[in-house]
């Protein structure tokens, strides 16, 4: 009568296998791949993607989708760069950007909630809006010369591991956000509401859960995460560019899916998303190490991996449905 509980964990297991496999492949193929520096850079270079993927995990868990991620990241970066270069206090600029991102998400959430518009459409419109507004602020990329970014962020706040390798501030940010997200997903009512909402919205409503408020809040969190990813991206590149991060939303969604979260919502793991982000980073690193491969292969490989995981999920869903009827 009982289903194998582990059905839920099969995709997560597959994710872990892919991660270990790719890392081993790298270590075997290239000399320096196993070094601490590569590992630290893997986290640091993908920190902004990781934070964006945290937001995407919440949205997808709830059964929704957010396509505005990349555009909001680009908007945030050009907003901060322009503001700081025009003389605004950097901390204030960052705070403003985060508030704007959260408000942007709230706006989209309200449209989805109040008018029952499909999330993909609202966030697609949001993507174009944010992208266009970025160009309104500055049509070209803006480099940052403020010492807060050049010295404080990139040097003082880095945590040295040994005399050659230190953990960049971006990586620290990612780890903190990840732990926070893990906590929210598993130890707060809001987090559990997200799972309930994605599991069965109608039931959640009949159980008296605050479905509407949760929905709006989810997109607020996603907007905030996108903006925070934008802040980290600005730290990382020391500049703002309205044309950057096109398609970042797919990478974020890809990380979530590869991390074993069900695209229809209700089942998923924050830790899986972390592994998904690392897998995407590893693919990028591998292709860079290889040197003679076109970088556009990255996108194609990611597409294939996403496809494989979607098919795996389909297969598991069908198999467990068969098992269920067979046991009745």
């Amino acid at each position, binding site marked *: *009568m*009982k*289903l194998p*509980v582990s059905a*839920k964990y099969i995709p997560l297991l597959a994710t872990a296998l892919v991660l270990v496999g790719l890392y081993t492949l790298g270590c075997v193929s290239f000399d320096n791949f196993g070094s601490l520096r590569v590992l630290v850079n893997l986290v640091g270079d993908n920190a902004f993607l990781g934070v964006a993927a945290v937001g995407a995990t919440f949205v997808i868990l709830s059964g929704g989708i957010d396509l505005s991620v990349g555009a909001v990241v680009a908007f945030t970066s050009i907003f901060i760069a322009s503001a700081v270069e025009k003389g605004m206090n950097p901390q204030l600029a960052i705070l403003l950007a985060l508030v704007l991102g959260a408000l942007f998400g709230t706006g989209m959430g309200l449209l989805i909630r109040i008018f029952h518009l499909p999330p993909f459409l609202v966030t697609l419109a949001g993507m174009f809006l944010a992208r266009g507004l970025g160009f309104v602020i500055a049509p070209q990329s803006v480099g940052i010369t403020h010492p807060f970014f050049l010295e404080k962020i990139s040097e003082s706040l880095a945590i040295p591991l040994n005399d050659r390798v230190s953990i960049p501030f971006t990586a620290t940010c990612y780890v903190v956000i990840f732990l926070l997200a893990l*906590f929210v997903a*598993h*130890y*707060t*009512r809001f987090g*559990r*509401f997200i*799972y*309930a909402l994605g*599991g*069965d919205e*109608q*039931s*959640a*409503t*009949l*159980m*008296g*859960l*605050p479905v509407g408020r949760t929905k709006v809040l989810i997109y607020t969190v996603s907007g905030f995460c996108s903006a925070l990813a934008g802040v980290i991206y600005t730290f990382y590149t020391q500049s703002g560019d309205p044309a950057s991060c096109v398609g970042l939303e797919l990478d974020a969604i890809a990380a979530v899916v590869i991390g074993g979260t069900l695209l229809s919502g*209700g*089942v998923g793991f924050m830790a899986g998303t972390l592994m998904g982000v690392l897998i995407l980073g590893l693919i990028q690193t591998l292709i860079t190490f290889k040197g003679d491969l076109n970088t556009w292969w990255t996108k194609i490989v990611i597409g294939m991996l996403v496809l494989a995981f979607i098919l795996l999920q389909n297969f598991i869903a069908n198999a467990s449905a068969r098992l*269920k*009827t*067979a046991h*009745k």
Partner: protein
Amino acid sequence: MAADQKPLLEIRGLTKSFPGVKALQNVDFTVRRGEVHALMGENGAGKSTLIKVLTGVYQRDSGSLRLDGVEINAASPKAAEALGISTVYQEVNLIPHLSVAENICLGRQPTRFGMIRWGAMAKRAEAALARVDIKLDVTQPLSSYSIALQQMIAIARALDVSGKLLVLDEPTSSLDEREVEELFKVIRKLRGEGLGIVIVTHFMDQVYAISDRITVLRDGQLVGEFETVKLPRAELVSKMIGKELSQVPTVQHDEGQASQARREPLLELKNYGRAGSVTGMNLTIGKGEVVGLAGLLGSGRTETARLIFGIDKPQTGEMLLDGKPTQFSSPREAIRAGFAFTPENRKVDGIIPRLSIRENIILALQARRGALKTLSQREQEEIADKYIKLIGISTPGAEQLVMNLSGGNQQKVLLARWLATQPRLLILDEPTRGIDVGAKAEILKLVQSLQEQGMSILFISSELEEVARDSQRVVVLRDRVKVGELTGEQISEENIMRTIAGHSHGS
């Protein structure tokens, strides 16, 4: 029960209408503490509307609603719960992927500094389950337990939320006999604790087994409130259908029909079955024969139809069509073989709401011909007009959208869709559910005339009177297994009911 006891729930003059429909008109309803009150009525009587107003899903148009003597107005299920009214629905409305403990405590999880205490939550869930005499591992996902246990978990949640009035909407429809008895034990225990319990169910036996009082609704109006022990079954039935027993026509099955059981078979099922659907089904439908399929909700009637029509694939047995083994892997193949199927839930599985009557009627015929052998506009109009007239669909024209038709007319459009394909076997699943009396009679007349023209019909209905009157043979199902077959003079409402209840009859 003291007569002067103040009622727990008092509803007076409740009215609720939807666009074009008066769902409830001036209905009174009273529930006392420590009683089980059955809410009875045929489909469309207004039971579910009443429940939904009570639990805050719908807002009433007028009337008063008092709980413990205080006027209440629940704006949402959550508000109703806060007032002390909680509901368990027929479909278990919980979250399958989450653990049992979470499902019981969701929305009220014990927290410290905003952080969920999983250990305390599990204890609380176990305590809630103890109230319904159940002990299980609350950390497992809900979906790993049977439907019956999920139902109990839902009740445990409802009790944990609030404990004045418990509404059970068709709680037994997917439970077996033993599970129903378990449920009733719990209900009796809760009644002893002073809860008011409202139960909505189709099953007459269960009403008499568990309820203290019965309120009967018909067509959105109150028929009356009765003490269960003082209301004979026959009278309850007549109150529900609105006819005195003497008015129920006695069914005459003449001698000729009994011998028609020897007809040449069109379709034979041998040991046909599928896990979770029906098992070991043996069924023969003769050419030009109406075979009735009777049984309670969830007994495997619709499931049998789905297997025959190629929606679900069988796992055992074989199907013979004209004596030759056949298997359909999709409705398309069944349709090509001359089968037709009007589903039980016509709004969800039947009509294409935003297309016209004409398009709905020609759809199946056109699909069978393929996209390229297109019916010309003129042919389409001719077919549509022909069937609108033949079946009596009341509409100003074939270009009206089907969504704007009444239930009865929508059902007629579906019949027209299939008649246009000139099927050999027509499967009708609850063709008269939720439609008005006039349309009902017309549809039943049509079934008879189709049979006279030589069409084979598999007739599924929960209205046993219809099954008894219109079928030459009745196959009775219980718990996904065929339990009897009645022919000729054996066919009567009473015999069907006996067979369903387990007093074996026929083979």
